């Protein structure tokens, strides 16, 4: 018996010892639609996906899932794939050393008497890529492709398995604006071909661009399923957080004081390619108590710029970095810290935290000198100070001796920021401070940034999200392929304006139309 719905979840409940991750979740996905699924971290999205994909097999949860009219009983991940459910994960699951074709058919290589039939493998790959208009060479090594194309490979892989339902988990978190657009195009294309999609994301704008229906989860329960055309961002956010949030960004009246950091004609060459300028003649300054947003597309050199300021990028560097009126050389993170420049890196799990260690040890890592002589750490003082700082920014933990692994994304990010609150901080650089954390936690991070600015800290914030840049910055520096194309005031900035600079359509240095506070 078939109906207009391809997938129905009915009263699905999943419990872990002591926690109810999902309670009585029911929702239906129409055939051929793009169904958005949103909710804060911990709302139950990943648990739901793990049930659909067979990570939690049938019997480990209560309730029924119906697919195409018959009950779905997955015993394993393999089972789910056979039944037509394919997931494109947030972290790409490809083997970078292998070709596109090899990756797509990994584990299902067409064989002749036990030897791989390469011609058929590549012919099939080529067919699939053509059928869905995916513009990737099927013989290319995956490592040679950009993140956006790699994701297409993942999608192609899912489609090659005859997926009836394609689940995309945070597909845009690592993509540039253009790549996002390409992805959206592909998804619309797939929709035309009748593929059903479940789309999970933190970026609400995308829901309104692409989805037909939105289901909002909160605390393991479905808040509502609504037609996208009948709702708006404010409503969805209100559903997610359970309260009406009048503003996603806390208001602050900032009064920047003296210039603390000045960068003049900074040029940095690519360490992997000594002839390529990664940062090209960038100059800017920032004052105490000011928030400078750095915007730009991925690969424009944003992260490289701030990592250079922190002393951990580039080998051939020219130009001046002036702190408090003194010209300084920063060659390592230690140098930067000595001058009061601190960095909250882009990827908190890989670069910000030692996940296997306790919250306490992470907090004290850059600050141990305060609690120790060469031969001794005063562990009591350490605990005392770290407890004080974590309470002051309300990190939620049951014990500071817990592993950082056990914290939610937002709390982990707070730990990375708190690491620097114990030490001398004149300039705090935040690289993508709210990536992958939920709306409520984002708001708290923003509040924290405002507080720091009020206390005279100069904040440099790199972000891919334009609303965040516009909502938080006093001034916005925009980069395009290594050079600074504009520095504009928040009052004059719009998303469109920033994008024209970021795509290099406009450049203050050659049309004289710049607002530069140096």
């Amino acid at each position, binding site marked *: 018996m078939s109906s207009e719905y391809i997938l129905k979840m009915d009263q699905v409940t999943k419990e872990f010892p*002591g926690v109810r991750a999902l309670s009585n979740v029911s929702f239906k996905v129409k055939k051929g639609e793009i169904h958005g699924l949103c909710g804060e971290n911990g709302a139950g999205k990943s648990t739901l996906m793990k049930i659909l994909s067979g990570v939690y097999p049938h019997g480990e949860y209560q309730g029924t899932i119906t697919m195409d009219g018959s009950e779905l009983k997955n015993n394993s991940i393999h089972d789910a794939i056979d039944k037509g459910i394919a997931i494109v994960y947030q972290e790409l699951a490809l083997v970078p050393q292998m070709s596109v074709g090899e990756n797509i058919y990994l584990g299902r290589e067409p064989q002749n008497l036990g030897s791989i039939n390469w011609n058929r493998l590549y012919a099939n790959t080529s067919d699939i890529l053509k059928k869905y208009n995916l513009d990737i060479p099927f013989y290319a090594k995956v490592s040679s492709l950009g993140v956006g194309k790699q994701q297409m490979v993942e999608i192609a892989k899912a489609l090659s398995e005859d997926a009836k339902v394609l689940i995309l988990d945070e597909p845009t978190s690592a993509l540039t604006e253009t790549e996002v657009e390409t992805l959206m195009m592909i998804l619309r294309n797939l929709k035309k071909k009748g593929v059903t999609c479940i789309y999970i994301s933190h970026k609400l704008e995308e829901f309104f661009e692409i989805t037909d229906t939105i289901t909002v989860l909160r605390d393991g329960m479905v808040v509502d399923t609504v037609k996208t055309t009948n709702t708006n961002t404010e409503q969805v956010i209100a559903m997610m957080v359970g309260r009406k949030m009048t503003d996603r960004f806390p208001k602050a009246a900032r009064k920047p004081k003296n210039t603390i950091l000045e960068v003049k004609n900074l040029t940095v060459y690519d360490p992997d390619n000594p002839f390529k300028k990664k940062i090209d003649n960038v100059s800017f300054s920032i004052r105490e108590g000011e928030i400078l947003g750095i915007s730009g597309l991925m690969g424009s050199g944003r992260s490289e710029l701030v990592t250079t300021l922190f002393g951990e990028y580039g080998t051939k560097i020219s130009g001046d970095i002036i702190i408090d009126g003194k010209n300084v050389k920063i060659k390592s993170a230690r140098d930067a810290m000595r001058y009061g420049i601190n960095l909250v*890196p882009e990827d908190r799990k890989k670069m910000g935290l*030692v*996940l*296997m260690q306790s919250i306490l040890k992470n907090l004290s890592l850059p600050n141990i000198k305060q609690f120790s002589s*060469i031969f001794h750490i005063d*562990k*009591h003082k350490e605990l005392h100070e770290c407890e004080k700082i974590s309470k002051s920014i309300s990190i939620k933990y049951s014990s500071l001796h817990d592993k950082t692994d*056990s914290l939610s994304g937002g709390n982990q990010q707070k730990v990375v920021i708190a690491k620097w609150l114990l030490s001398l901080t004149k300039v705090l650089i935040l690289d993508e401070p709210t990536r992958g954390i939920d709306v409520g936690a984002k708001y708290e991070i923003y509040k924290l940034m405002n507080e720091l600015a009020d206390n005279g800290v100069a904040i440099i914030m790199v972000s891919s999200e334009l609303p965040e840049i516009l909502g938080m910055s006093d001034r916005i520096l925009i980069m395009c392929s290594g050079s600074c194309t504009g520095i504009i005031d928040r009052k004059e900035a719009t998303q469109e304006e920033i994008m024209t600079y970021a795509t290099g359509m406009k450049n203050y240095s050659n049309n004289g139309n710049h607002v530069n506070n140096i």
Partner: protein
Amino acid sequence: MFLKDISKRSARYISVNIRYLAMIFALILIWAFFAVATQGIFLKAQNLSNLFRQMTIISFLAIGMVLVIVTGNIDLSVGSVVGFISAIAAYLQAVTFSKYLPKMFPMLVGHVSILGIETTYVGLLSTGLTIVIALLVGILIGVIQGASIAYLGIPAFVVTLGGMLIFRGGVLGITQGKTVVPIENSLVYIAQGYLSNLGGIIVACIVIIAIFIIILWNRKQKKSYGFDINPIYKDLSIAGFFSLLVLFYVLYIANGYRGIQNPVLLLAIVAIIFSYVSTNTRFGRYCYALGGNKEATKLSGVNIRWNIFIVFVLMGLLSGIAGIVLTGYVAAGTIGGGLNYELSTIAACVIGGTSLMGGEGRISGALVGSLIIASLENGMSVMNMDIFWQYIVKGLVLILAVYIDVASNRKSWIEK
């Protein structure tokens, strides 16, 4: 909510401690098995005393190896380095110093007797110089290997695999394929001598007093910061338990035979210092942090190259100590000195809960691991088991130990 908290806490407590409990349990099981299988010979003071002495050389190395593995590296050269240093020490004593020192210092050839050792002033001088040179050679090797790894960026596996071959070559070159003897009595005393019974009791008293002072001082510190403290009876019973262990060792094992073994005393001192360094100093903290996440540690302003360098220098120093003890222990320099020690050392660390992925491991664990290996070797020898069985059993125990570790970690999904 409350229930969630309890289950989370107990899960955490169990997953942290299960490997240590399993290790202690395994040790007791092994001892019990050998006690029965050898009709009690295994548990006699004389045998246990020998067992503890046998474990010392691997234990010195395991102390350093824990730090090496925690930082995400490995040292395959320790066996050869120990052999090399031992050969140098033996050659210095048997050839160089015995030939030149009496000529240079003719006034020192007189006989002397201290601590019950019959020797000469020249002999004492020879031993002193040998110890200094052996330690310096160990440090130098650590400097060279550490610099190659930390500053030239050659993988530790490769550098120390090379070192393993180079220093084994060095052993053969120095000994010329022969056993180098004689060794001065004073050097032999370091590895084979015993403290008097009175000395043992004094040591026991000092250690027990220290345990109580540390625990009480810790309470006072916690109180001054307003932290929660354990009820006093709990802290006192912990102190009491460790005191009983010390008393059991000193009164039954050591004084029950010939007294505290010198190398065991030396090991205890070195182990306490390194344990302290690994848990209570910046250097130690940085080792664990960079083993857990090199990038994050670097971005926290830690000089990770320098840290890794120092770890290998310390490994060299400990190899030097182990080399001296080995020379005294066999009272000679031999071609086979230190052969396969790197494998036993790594096994001791792994059995003791050190993760080869880096970031995790305790020195105390490695010492228990080393004791387990020594117990197996000793017990099987006492049982007169064939040597081939000994290898097979040790291999199986190693794999089993890691399996327990893996299995106990898998449980920790509850925490997520």
